[in-house]
């Protein structure tokens, strides 16, 4: 259990930049993480193909914000807007990355946003994105984030406007290999910082929980870390969210494939908690 291969290795971090406030939070977190893990940041701006199509329609008009004025929208307009936004995001990325002395690169691609992100995610170790894009929605998890959360092949960090990767780090542990990876990721997050972990043990039975606690504490001891433990016997998303809030958790690390946190449940969790969430795959 204490083999080194379980330690987390993150070399490339992809950050989805769509000019929303959430995506700026995602950028900040990515830069901070990259600095801590000595990784590089890859910024990706996707020109939404849907918008291009929209612009091609003859009757398309745009309601401008915040003036609410209406105006005709053509393909050239939208392309110009894309270029302007991309340039702005590039500058933002440069500013944040340079501040923490992190290597960075920036790409622009065109297509369906989630698909483009997932393609790019295949090349990196971690993808950081905002919990919602700029689309008009209900305030919960955005459509793109939903797709990425469900399908991303790598670690996925979901950020929200105004949040930072703060302490303490809460990790959900169910004994699975993925949970072990989540533990490693959580450890990586607090590496070099004077902090402890909070471990939620997902176990229906007390003996199982005890056994898991022994495993985790052994693993942590080797890394000279300590943790506080909570047992989540009745495994519900609701309780997990409550407990995270009660413990004033700063960042939540969860294994994505946990029985408790399968797809829809995971999305529900992300909707509920107001902290950064790192999904581990």
């Amino acid at each position, binding site marked *: 259990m204490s083999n080194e291969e379980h330690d987390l290795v993150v070399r490339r971090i992809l950050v989805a930049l769509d000019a929303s406030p959430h995506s700026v939070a995602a950028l900040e977190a990515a830069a901070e993480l990259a600095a801590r893990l000595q990784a590089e940041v890859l910024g990706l701006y996707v020109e939404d193909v*849907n918008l291009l199509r929209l612009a091609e329609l003859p009757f398309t*008009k745009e309601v401008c914000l915040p003036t609410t004025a209406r105006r005709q929208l053509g393909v050239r307009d939208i392309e110009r807007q894309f270029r302007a936004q991309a340039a702005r995001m590039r500058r933002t990325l440069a500013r944040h990355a340079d501040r923490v002395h992190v290597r960075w690169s920036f790409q622009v691609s065109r297509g369906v946003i989630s698909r483009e992100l997932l393609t790019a995610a295949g090349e990196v170790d971690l993808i950081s994105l905002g919990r919602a*894009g700029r689309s*008009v929605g*209900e305030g919960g998890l955005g459509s793109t984030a939903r797709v990425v959360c469900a399908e991303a092949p790598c670690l996925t960090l979901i950020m929200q406007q105004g949040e930072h990767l703060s302490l303490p780090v809460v990790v959900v542990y169910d004994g699975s290999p993925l949970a072990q990876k989540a533990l490693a990721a959580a450890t990586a997050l607090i590496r070099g910082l004077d902090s402890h972990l909070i471990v939620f043990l997902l176990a229906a039975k007390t003996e199982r929980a005890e056994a898991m606690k022994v495993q985790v504490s052994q693993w942590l001891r080797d890394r000279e870390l300590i943790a506080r433990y909570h047992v989540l016997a009745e495994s519900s998303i609701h309780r997990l969210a409550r407990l995270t809030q009660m413990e004033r958790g700063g960042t939540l690390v969860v294994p994505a494939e946990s029985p408790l946190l399968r797809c829809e449940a995971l999305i529900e969790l992300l909707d509920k908690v107001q902290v950064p969430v790192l999904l581990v795959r």
Partner: protein
Amino acid sequence: MEKVKGLDASQLCQRTDPEQFNFETTADVDDLQDPIGQPRAVQAMQFGTGIERKGFNVFALGPSGMDKRAFVSQFFAGQAQSEAVPSDWCYANNFAEPHRPQAIGLPAGMGVRLRQDMEQLVEELRTALAASFESEEYQTRRQVIAEEFKERQEQAFKGLQERAQEGGLAVLRTPAGLAFAPVRDGEVLSREEVEKLGAEKRQQLEQEVETLQEELQKILRQMPSWQRDMRDKMRELDREVATLAVGGLMDELRERYSDYDRVAKYLDDVRKDVVENASEFFPSEQDPSTVLSALLGGAGAQREPGGPALLRRYRVNVLVDHSSSEGAPVVYEDNPTYQNLIGRVEHMAQMGALVTDFNLVKAGALHRANGGYLMLDARELLLQPYAWDGLKRALQSGQLRIESLGQMLSLVSTVSLEPEPIALDVKVALLGEPMLYYLLWQLDPDFADLFKVAADLEERMERSPENQLLYARLIATLARRHDLRPFDRGAVARVIEHSARVAGDAAKLSTHMRSISDLLQEADYQAGEAGSEVVTADAVQHAIDAQIYRSDRLRERAQEAILRDTLLIDTEGEAIGQVNGLSVAQLGSFAFGRPTRITAQVRMGKGEVVDIEREVELGGPIHSKGVLILSGFLGGRYAAERPLSLSASLVFEQSYSGVEGDSASSAELYALLSAIAEVPLRQSLAVTGSVNQRGQVQAIGGVNEKIEGFFDVCRARGLTGEQGVLIPAANVKHLMLRQDVVDAVAAGQFQVYPVEFIDQGIEILTGVPAGERDEGGHYAEGTVNYLVEKRLAQLAEKRAEFSPAAGEGEV
């Protein structure tokens, strides 16, 4: 006319007999409580301190060195003791108009209490507010409000979205706004696909988009008002929570000060302000100024929430604290600048700018003396720019209004304050020289309104036996005050004698405190040098001699010049038209007399006496007047009925500086008479005294110094017994001569002649009778007057011969 005899030695100096004192040394004598020799000033001070009317402020006038401050403060302190301690004064924030701090008056000692209470309140408020605002309940309620807004917004969009979906449309976010697009399976239909839909369908679609866009615009336009609603609700919530948290603490404090309306009102304002600004008690993450100030450090830290800036806002600036005062205050401001008098508003640098608030209002002397007494040196006050104007304005208006000079003169344009004026009730005493008093009286029309009481200090007092006893007590008091050895009665007597000499009058004593206390301290030093336990008459004499020696370098030079015949002064023999006059030189506190040769030349002329001093503008107007009187005398007495046909010139020989005063006019007349009559004058005598047109000799000043000045020259050359000085008889009462002069007169080696009329003087000087007119109006042959008249008659006749035609010439 009676022949004048030299004065008796006893008349030359009025001694004080030590035996009249019934003490051995001043250690046995009680302190003097009241000022001596100042009945007028004392009454003025009693009146000035007693009367409680506007404008009855005091001006204590007297020459420098009269110790006016001690004199005035004695009365003020006495009166202040029995008076109530005045109010404390504080400046507190005026929440409605921060640039006009409010003045709060409180009974003595309460000012500091209010300040402490407010400091404590802020501490407690911080805790109480923090507890309320960090509570779960508050946070929840706040979130509920935020959620409500969010929900409202979401619902509006959701409705829109649903309607859009029904028509197969979706809302898309473009980089610059929002747009509606037909979608299928989450993807926007392409142009071709739309075209395939057919014209009717397409039109319907367009119509739908149009409607939705209008709807969207409507929603978006409502958004700001919703946001405003949310903010209002949040503020209302904050207010509610803060009111509750603040309530208990404020009620308690308000109860404590319920008797004081101003404080109660102030506390109400504080309550309102705290409720309004409760959020300032906590750090707010979004506050960019905190980041900026953190970067800048130092000065910027003022803006830290709950930090010094907040503390300053609710502080109380106690300007005047009387918590440890007893009675009314008596203040002496030794540097009466405008700001030190009226108070000032200071500034501090904050991020490169000068800022201020009510905490930086500083009290002036008038604040400290309010309700009591203030003493100021008039000269110092007038030397300070605008200080006099400031004082007058405050006294006239009865209000203390702090205005910065820079502001008043528009010299600076920093932010400043207009503190609320404070009611002023103060008795002011200005201490100054008489000249200042009279100048102010004459030149400043407000002066008479504001300083109605003049305490005019007398420089001299009567030398009665009772006063000499009081003087002894004064010496005792001063000796103890300056921590000196006791003075024995001989020393006391000597000091009193010297005091009469300083006063320049045998029947007076000087009340010039500085000269007295200087002499006492110097005598004490001399006694110390001599190893004596008490100060004796010898020590006093030593001190006087040393004082003189220290300052008589120029006198010595002058005397040396005479003795070496550089300055020509004869002290024996006789000469026509030449007499020894006497003048006094004043150098600082030291005055000395010295003889001057005065000569007269006569010739035929048109009746004028030429004053050479005046011709060359070395003579002052009084001196010229004296000389002109001589022509009057000559004409009146000797040439009443024929033209005065003489031209005479008078000169102070070897005088190289200005001459002023008429004390030499009798000497000039003697010289003139001698020159006209061609009768020689005794050079062993010197003369002082002025003369009028009737030939009466009148009193002059500095008689002691003049006699001693001539005596010193004679003694140095050897006293012959012939030598002496002619003084006006009216000056005899002023004689306080040095002991060696008195001794010489007693031994018959020197004479002092009191002269009343010119005729008496001329007899002494010439040894020839002056002569009086007989029944026929003629002088007896051989007398001086006869010779003068005869010569003048001769000159008149001769002059008539020169005239072009007798009776037609000029007169």
